[in-house]
C-alpha cells in the first residue's frame, strides 16, 4: 500500500512544474496547458486525501474541477483565437497594450 504522503509529494512536484512552465513559457497555448497541469496536480491531492479520510467529497470536488476546467478551456481558447487574429502572433510579449 502507498502512503498518502507520496501522492501529496507527487502532486506538489507536478504543481511546481506547472508554475515554472507558466512563468517560463512564452507561447500562450503552452501557458494555458501549464494551467491544466496545475489543475491536474490539485485533483491528485483531492483524490489522495479523499481515500485517506475515507470520504467521497474529494472525488465529487474533482468532478466539479474537471467541469470548470472544460468551461475554462472553451472560453480561454476562444480568447487565444481572438489574440492570434488581432496580433498575428502567439507570443505573450507581443500582447503589451497595457504595458508602459
Amino acid at each position, binding site marked *: *500500500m*502507498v*502512503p*498518502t*504522503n*507520496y*501522492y*501529496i509529494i*507527487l502532486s*506538489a*512536484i*507536478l*504543481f*511546481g*512544474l506547472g*508554475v*515554472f512552465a507558466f*512563468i*517560463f*513559457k*512564452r*507561447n500562450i*497555448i*503552452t501557458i494555458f*496547458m*501549464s494551467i*491544466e*497541469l496545475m489543475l*491536474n496536480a490539485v*485533483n*491528485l491531492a483531492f*483524490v*489522495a486525501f*479523499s*481515500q*485517506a*479520510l475515507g470520504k*467521497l467529497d474529494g*472525488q*465529487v470536488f*474533482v*468532478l*466539479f474541477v*474537471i*467541469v470548470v476546467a*472544460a*468551461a*475554462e*478551456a*472553451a*472560453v480561454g*481558447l*476562444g480568447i*487565444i*483565437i*481572438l489574440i*492570434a487574429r488581432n496580433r498575428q502572433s*502567439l*507570443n505573450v*510579449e507581443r500582447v503589451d497594450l497595457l504595458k508602459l
Partner: protein
Amino acid sequence: MTPQLAVFFVLAALAVAGAISLILQKHPIHSALSLIVVMVALAGLYLLLGAEFVAAVQIIVYGGAIMVLFVFVIMLLNAGVEEHTSISKMAGGPGLLLVVALGGFIAATIARSSESVQAAEQTGTLSSTRGISSMIFKDFVYPFELTSFLILVAILGATVLAQREKS
C-alpha cells in the same frame, strides 16, 4: 516493495517526465502530447487509489475532449516554434526561485502534518461510483445544476468570442 508501490513509482515517474517534457519542448504540439502522457499517468494513479469513476472521467474529458480542443486550436492557428527572448530567459530565474520556495513550503507543511495523515495508507476499498452518484444527486445537487449553467455560459462566451465580426 509491494506491487502497488512499484506501480505508483512507474506512474509517478511517467507523470513527472511528461511534465518536464512539456517545459522542454519548443513546439506547442509536442507540449500538448506530453500533457496527454501526464493525464494518462494520473488516470492510472486514480485507478491505483480506487477512484475508477474519476479515472474514466479523466481519460474521457481531459485526455479526450480538452486535449483534442487544444490540438485543434494549435492546428487552426498553425502555431510554430516558440521564440525565446531575453525577458523569458530572465523569467526563468525568478520562476525557479518561486518553485523552490513553493516546494519547500509544501514539504514543511507535510513534515509538520499529524502522524495520522502521514501514515494513512491508501486502502482503495472505498466503493466510489455508487457513492459519488448518490452524493452528486443528493448533497451536491444545486452545485451540480449550477455547473450546467456554467457550461452554457462558457459555450455562449466561446461562440461570441470566436465568431468573425461582420464588416
